[in-house]
Structure formats: C-alpha cells, structure tokens
C-alpha cells in the first residue's frame, strides 16, 4: 500500500510517537461518537491531519481503494435490511436508520484508514526504531513492528522486479482471464520463495549481529521529544477521555 514518504512538515519532524498518538486518538474518537455527522467530523479531522503533513494526495487513493468495497457492501446491507422508516429509491425501499448506520460504520473506517495511512507516511521507520530503543523497548518487539510497517513497500518493490523479469522472459500479463490466471504462477511463486529465503537470511544476520542479545540497547540518535510533542499527545489523551466521558454520561451524539 504505502510506506514512509519523506517530507519536512511538522509531523515529519515530530517525535515518532506523536503522529502515532494522533492516529490512535482519531481512531478512538471515531468510536466515541455515534451520530453520522459527528463521525464525519472525525473523518474531516483525519483528512486535515493528512493535509497538514502534505500527504493527503498520497493517502487518499489507497484509503479509497480499501474503503470503497466495504462502503458499498455496508450501504446495500443496511439500506435493504434495516428497519423502518423507509424511503423509496425507484422500486427499492431503502431503510433510513440502516443508511445512517452505514454512514457511521463507513465514516469510522474512513477515519481509521486516513489516520493510520498518514501515520505510516509520516513516521520514518528508522526514527521509530531509535525512539523505541531509547525508551527501552525490547529489540524483538521493535523489529516486529518495523518489519510490519515496511513489509508492504518492500513486497511491492520485489513484485515489480519479478514482473519486469518475467515479462523479459516473454510472460504476457494481459489477455483472457485464463491467461491472467496462468501468469500468476511465475509471479507469485518466486515472490513467496524469495521472501522465505530472505527471512531465513535475515534471521541469521540478526542472530550474528546480536539481535537476540539480552540487555538494554543503545540508541545512537534518539529523536527529540520536545515539550510541544508531549503537549500534543497530552491534548489527544484529554480529548479522547473527554469524548468517552461525554459518551458514557449519556450526552454524546
């Protein structure tokens, strides 16, 4: 999907925990509110979050690709199977509360995707490793997280290499559905096999470089955790707590 997009925005320069905290805060806010309008305000906030980092254009497309099928499904299911009252859309009776539920669930999905794709695009994996190491997080957990964050862009690059190589050996990617299905083998098999070979090599390389050694690791260049960073994270926490307090006190939308 997407990986880190280098940039000079405040979010790019911030401590890596700050964009992650904002993304988590947006996720929690999306579930703290339940009125369609309020949920879509959170979506707008997530879009603002992406725009402030200059990555809105980058994250919109993958977010739409991921969200669109679910939106369509939610609208059809809730619209057709939801309760009264209904509005007539041509020959179809469309449930109004069902439609509202679809709007809420679809909005939550959009907010989550925009928020976390923005965090992916603005948090440099290398700086995140340094930040987590400085906080004493065990290397195994750091490696697991960073591998997960970087796996998609790495696989995309590998897929590109394999597609190029097989096309140069005469593999045609277009054609009939059967031809496309046949073309999958020469693309998927080397992807899986080479990924497995790489995992094996990386595991050995980590072992010989002390990856599994015990004890606290040294952070060579830990990112600065400024007062502004801490203030933003505190503000996110306060906003989330306030939203849930509002919700459970029965006054929320």
């Amino acid at each position, binding site marked *: 999907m997407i990986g880190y997009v280098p940039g000079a925005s405040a979010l790019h320069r911030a401590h890596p925990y700050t964009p992650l905290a904002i993304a988590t805060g947006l996720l929690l806010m999306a579930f703290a509110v339940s009125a369609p309008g309020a949920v879509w305000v959170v979506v707008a906030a997530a879009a603002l979050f992406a725009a402030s980092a200059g990555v809105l254009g980058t994250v919109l497309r993958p977010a739409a690709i991921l969200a669109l099928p679910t939106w369509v499904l939610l609208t059809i299911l809730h619209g057709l199977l939801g309760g009264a009252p209904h509005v007539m859309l041509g020959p179809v009776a469309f449930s109004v509360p069902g439609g509202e539920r679809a709007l809420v669930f679809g909005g939550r999905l959009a907010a989550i995707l925009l928020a976390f794709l923005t965090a992916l695009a603005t948090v440099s994996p290398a700086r995140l490793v340094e930040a987590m190491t400085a906080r004493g997080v065990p290397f195994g957990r750091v490696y697991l997280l960073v591998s997960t964050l970087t796996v998609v862009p790495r696989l995309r690059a590998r897929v590109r290499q394999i597609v*190029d190589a097989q096309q140069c050996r005469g593999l045609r990617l277009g054609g009939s559905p059967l031809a496309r299905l046949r073309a999958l083998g020469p693309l998927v098999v080397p992807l899986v096999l080479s990924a497995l070979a790489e995992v094996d090599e990386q595991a050995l390389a980590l072992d010989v470089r002390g990856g599994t050694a015990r004890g606290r690791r040294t952070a060579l260049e830990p990112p600065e955790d400024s007062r502004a960073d801490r203030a933003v994270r505190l503000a996110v926490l306060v906003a989330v707590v306030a939203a849930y307090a509002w919700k459970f006190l029965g006054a929320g939308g």
Partner: protein
Amino acid sequence: MSAAPGRGHAVRWEAVRFAYDGVEALRGVSLDVPAGTTLAILGPNGAGKTTLTRLLIGLLRPRAGRVSVGDWDVAAKRPDELAARVGYVFQHADQQLFERTVRRDVAFGPQRLGLGDGGVERALGELGLLGGAESHPYDLPAPARKLVALAGVLAMEPGVLVLDEPTAGLDRAGRDRVIAALRRRSVDGVTVVVVSHDLAFVAEVAERIVVLREGVVVADAPAGRLLGDAAALAPLGLEPPPAAAVGAALGLPGAPIRVEDCAAALGGVRWRGTGA
C-alpha cells in the same frame, strides 16, 4: 518474432532523455551499436547505466528521443514482445526463478517464444548446470541460481543480450563460464550490452566501452584503447584491469588487457582459463 534466433540486431539510442520524479537520469544520450558488437557500459552508481538498458526492453519509456532494436521502435512494443529480440539478465535475476526444476525454469522463456529445447540444453551445458538440472532452483546456492537465471535468458537465443552486473557474487569458475558463453555469443553475431563495475570482466568480453556520468556519455572508445590507458581512465574515476596494469608495468608489447593476452605476451606462460 521476425528475427532468426541468435542473429544480432543493431541497437540505437537517439537523443534519449529520461527522468525519475523530475530528476534527470539520462540527458540526451545517443549511441549506435552495430549488430554483433559487445558493448560495456561503465560509470559510477546513479550514472544512468541501468536506466539506459531498461529503455531497451521497454520497461521504461523515454521522455524524449527514440530507442530501436533492429527495425523495431521499442516504443511500439511491449516487454514480452521485445523478449523475442532482447534477452535481459537482471542484477538480482535469481529472484525470478519459480519452476520445480532448473531445466524447467530455463525452458520457460524458450517455451513462451515457441522455441525448441536445443537452446535450453546448450545454455545448461555452457554454464555447468547439467548436473543439477533436475534440482529445485532454491536448493542451489545464490550464485548458482544467478547462473540458472542467466541460462534462462541465453536459452531464448536473443539477438541482443543485455546483462546488468552479470558477475556480481559469482566465483571464479562461474565467472569464467559467463565469459566463455558471452564470447561464443559474440562469435555467433549476437549484440551484447554489459553493465558492470568489474573491469577485469569487461576487459575479457567487451570490444567497445561507453562511460556514463550523470546521464551523459563522457567516453566512448574501443576497449583495448581505453582500458590500456591509465591516463585516460583516471579522470573517469576508473583504474586499468589487473592484466592491463601488469602489461603496462612490464612494458609488454601490444598493451594487452586480457589475462591470456598478457600471459601470451610474457611468453612461455601457459594460460589455463576461459576459451571462446
């Protein structure tokens, strides 16, 4: 598929420009490579060497200019169509293997092009892979997998053969086999384009050398003349290959750049290496 397998094609880049995200990688490169020539493209990392060769197989399209292989305009062809004329061996070619045996993988390209098995057996034999032809490619060590990938392209009997760092990671025996295979292709009239940092290898196979820097051709000369001239190589950031350095230090006649030529010039030394 208008060309007979193995017959060389002229390759031409005409005023080619290419940019990655606005950063120019090639700035008006023009080269004319007659059929049957073995050309080496040298230059530092980021000079545009791989970009230049990728244009040849249609994996990249020039922003300006024209690329042709024989009478084909590359812009009008897909990579799988160009495969009938141009064989491309990637730097990390071992990552493309997918069949259950080495022989089946080497036969993939020829089967796609509707060729017979002759090229498969020849390529396997040339690269010393007949003994492991029924092995799974991933049971072989990485250098042997690289040879399998190279065999897969040689077996397609292309008229133009492009190799990106073909000797990286190979041992002496593997390297010698690649040299011998390329020399045989040259004798057969195949046009060979090699991108490499390995000047000793380039000296063994190339007839002509082009040096790129920042997307521009800064040198274009016969291999014997350029690689034997330390003074000409120095401003290009290159050093003569070992055989040329030894020849120059000893003042050997004919300024040899290949190991066997150097040995022959020394006289009485029996060379036991690659044979064309």
